[in-house]
């Protein structure tokens, strides 16, 4: 088995790392295709993806030589020797030695320690062979040259090693800076994300390409299942990685390069799986790349966790707000239910016990019972509507209606409550049909008319008008009563439990307008309150208009 020299450790590790089959069974990593490194080992380089054949020893040595800069070192020595041969015509032999030292420094700076040492050795050897008399021989005429060689060799080695270390430190400083910049970028991108979708986008489009050709961040659903439609990915492997919190590789033969699955871990557990395809960094940069990759995974995990907790906090807030509303509703409803019930019961008992009650008193007691039960009825109807809408959402039973019919029915229903109030209706004769839930919409008008009856004096005027304006239908209900309360904004009237007159004798929990607005908005419309000039209030409903269905002309029927 042919393995790159430094890939040996890799293979041992890879053999321990399990690989999950598509059917979910784990099998040893090394048994399948090309080995993938376990990235948790920072020093292990990523193996080249090509399957190892059997290269000749010469080719391996040559490869190694080129890898570590040995060939350039030998070449540099040769060049230095030639140069020295030329220079020796002008300079003294002892001065030319410096040229070899200089070469060693250059080689060590460029190709590292080993190349520097080789250059030092060959420099000394070629100096001996070519320049020290007798030339073209390793024999020495003067034994003091031995001292010179030894010293030169030691000096060359030391200088070479120092230069090489300088080079490595510079390189690692530059790489560190690159990593820091990249990390800062990733951190910036992730911290700007406000939803998991954005994080997924950043991972797939920005972060993954830093490490491989393509990448996907896979997130579990509510049941902890990882689903993916991506044909390159294997859901079972991703699920395994997510469940175990361990890394795995998967090669689906013939479908491009293998995909590596890395768990995205946050302090409180695994949050997802990052799948990378086409991981091919240069071996020398592998360690840096690996550390950067791990740091990015940690950042992604933290970002996911941050959003998870932000979601939890938001849900809790909604729940608390719902709870608060429920309490307010309960308090208001129990007040508004009990008040008329108490009155009804009291009046009934008065009628029951008092035998000598004057006729006028009896009539007013009976009238009061009826009024109170009407109020109770209106409240119950609103509550039921509200409960129905909250339970099922607002379900609209839309049909094409003539708005005039809805007004007619609402007016007939409110006739008793409106009493002697003058009602002026201005509906254009050619109003188009509107698509609405007539029963819900009748509730809107009924509530507006009820409000008018509740808050205006017995001889007030009411105006109901409808016309097409802008790109919608405009429906207005106006009165010349006391108008909207001056101390609150008109919009607050539409908040639940808002009432113009605080704790007044007028019953109703202020659900009416809230209900009206919900219904109108469910129709895609808007409901607003305005003061009417010179006195009174004006409620305006704006409904969007669509092309009504065609009606066949009569002669065709």
């Amino acid at each position, binding site marked *: 088995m042919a393995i790159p020299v430094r890939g040996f450790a890799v293979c041992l590790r890879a053999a321990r790392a399990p690989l999950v089959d598509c059917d979910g069974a784990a099998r040893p990593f090394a048994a399948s295709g090309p080995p993938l490194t376990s990235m948790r080992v920072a020093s292990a380089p990523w193996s080249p993806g090509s399957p190892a054949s059997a290269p000749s020893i010469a080719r391996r040595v040559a490869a190694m030589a080129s890898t570590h800069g040995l060939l350039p070192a030998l070449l540099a020595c040769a060049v230095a020797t030639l140069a020295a041969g030329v220079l020796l015509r002008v300079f003294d032999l002892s001065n030319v030695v410096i040229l070899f030292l200089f070469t060693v420094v250059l080689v060590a700076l460029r190709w590292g320690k080993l190349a520097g040492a080789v250059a030092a050795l060959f420099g000394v050897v070629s100096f001996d062979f070519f320049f020290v008399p007798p030339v073209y021989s390793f024999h020495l005429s003067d034994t003091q040259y031995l001292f010179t060689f030894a010293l030169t060799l030691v000096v060359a080695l030391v200088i070479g090693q120092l230069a090489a270390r300088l080079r490595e430190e510079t390189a690692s400083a530059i790489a560190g800076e690159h990593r820091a910049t990249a990390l800062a970028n990733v951190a910036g991108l992730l911290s700007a994300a406000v939803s998991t979708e954005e994080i997924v986008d950043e991972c797939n489009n920005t972060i993954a390409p830093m490490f491989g050709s393509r990448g996907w961040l896979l997130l579990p659903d509510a049941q902890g299942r990882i689903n993916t439609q991506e044909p390159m990915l294997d859901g079972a492997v991703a699920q395994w990685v997510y469940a175990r919190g361990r890394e795995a590789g998967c090669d689906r033969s013939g479908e491009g390069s293998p995909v590596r699955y890395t768990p995205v871990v946050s302090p409180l557990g695994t949050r997802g799986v990052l799948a990378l395809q086409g991981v091919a960094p240069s071996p020398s940069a592998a360690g840096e790349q690996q550390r950067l990759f791990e740091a990015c995974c940690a950042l992604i995990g933290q970002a996911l966790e941050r959003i998870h907790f932000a979601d939890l906090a938001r849900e809790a807030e909604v729940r608390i707000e719902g709870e608060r509303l429920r309490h307010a509703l309960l308090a208001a409803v129990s007040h508004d239910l009990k008040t008329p019930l108490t009155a009804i019961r009291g009046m009934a008992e008065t009628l029951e016990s008092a035998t000598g009650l004057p006729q006028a008193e009896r009539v007013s007691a009976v009238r009061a019972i009826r009024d109170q*039960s009407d109020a109770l009825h209106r409240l119950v109807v609103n509550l039921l509507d509200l409960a129905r809408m909250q339970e099922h959402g607002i379900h609209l*039973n839309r049909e*094409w209606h003539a708005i005039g*019919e809805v007004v*007619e029915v609402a007016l007939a229903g409110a006739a008793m409550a409106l009493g002697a109030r003058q009602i002026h209706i201005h509906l254009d004769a050619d109003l188009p049909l509107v698509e609405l839930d*007539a029963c819900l919409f009748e509730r809107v008008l009924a509530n507006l008319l009820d409000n008018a009856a509740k808050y205006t004096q017995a001889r007030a005027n009411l105006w109901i008008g409808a016309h097409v304006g802008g790109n919608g239908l405009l429906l207005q209900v106006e009165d010349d009563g006391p108008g909207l309360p001056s101390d609150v904004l008109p919009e607050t009237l539409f908040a639940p439990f808002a009432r113009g007159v605080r704790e007044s004798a007028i019953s109703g929990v202020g659900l009416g307008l809230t209900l009206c607005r919900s219904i109108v908005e469910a129709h895609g419309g808007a409901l607003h309150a305005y003061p009417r000039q010179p006195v009174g209030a004006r409620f305006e409903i704006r409904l969007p208009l669509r092309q009504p269905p065609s*009606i066949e002309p009569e002669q065709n*029927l």
Partner: protein
Amino acid sequence: MTRQRILLVEDEGDIRHFIRVALEREGMTVFEAANAWEARIAAASRQPQLVIMDLGLPDGDGKDVIRDLRGWSSAPVLVLSAREHEQEKVAALEAGADDYLAKPFGVPELLARVRAHLRRANLIGMGGATLSIVRFGDVQVDLATYEVSRNGAPVHLTPIEFRLLAALIRGYGKVITYRQLLLDVWGPGYSDRPHYARVYMNNLRQKLEEDPARPRHLVTELQVGYRLAGICRGEATLSAAPPVPSERGLETRYQA
């Protein structure tokens, strides 16, 4: 004049009680039934002229009782229901009921409807089928000659408008569902197009009503259908003087 016989089917005792008191004060005889079984027996033995029926009975659905009743009786049926869904109303009407009242209802409203339906049944019983002239408000319709006039002036109606009006007249003031109207006027292919009825009803109102926005005769039953109110036959004008001002509106709305 003989006392009119009313069958009251309602499982709640208090409601039965106040309806009974109200009807007896009107000079009617009331028979009570608290469930579907009693209702079937009472209907057969008492031969009521009008039935007031609660839909939610302890031993069955009021609609089934109405269907059975329709097999042999044409007495008007007035449905009482706490269920607000329009589908329920439509189902009751199509089972054979003539009208419905949603709980809670007022006594004046109930009485107005009972009177209206008794008058209507009376008109049919008088053999009015031979009379082709019908009046409501200031409108006169001759079903034989297709002539319609308002305040003596002829009104032109298109054939569809006339068929719609005739269908309402044939109902004698009972609620006619959209489906029934569409089948009757437009034919089977149109039963799911209630907007046809709405558009033509608007035309009819513009031509026949004094105030089309607040019709007194061509009355909307939202999501259910229409009824023709205030109808009378030939020269026989039937109108009772309403006792309290607030009931005047009801009387007109439900007068047949």
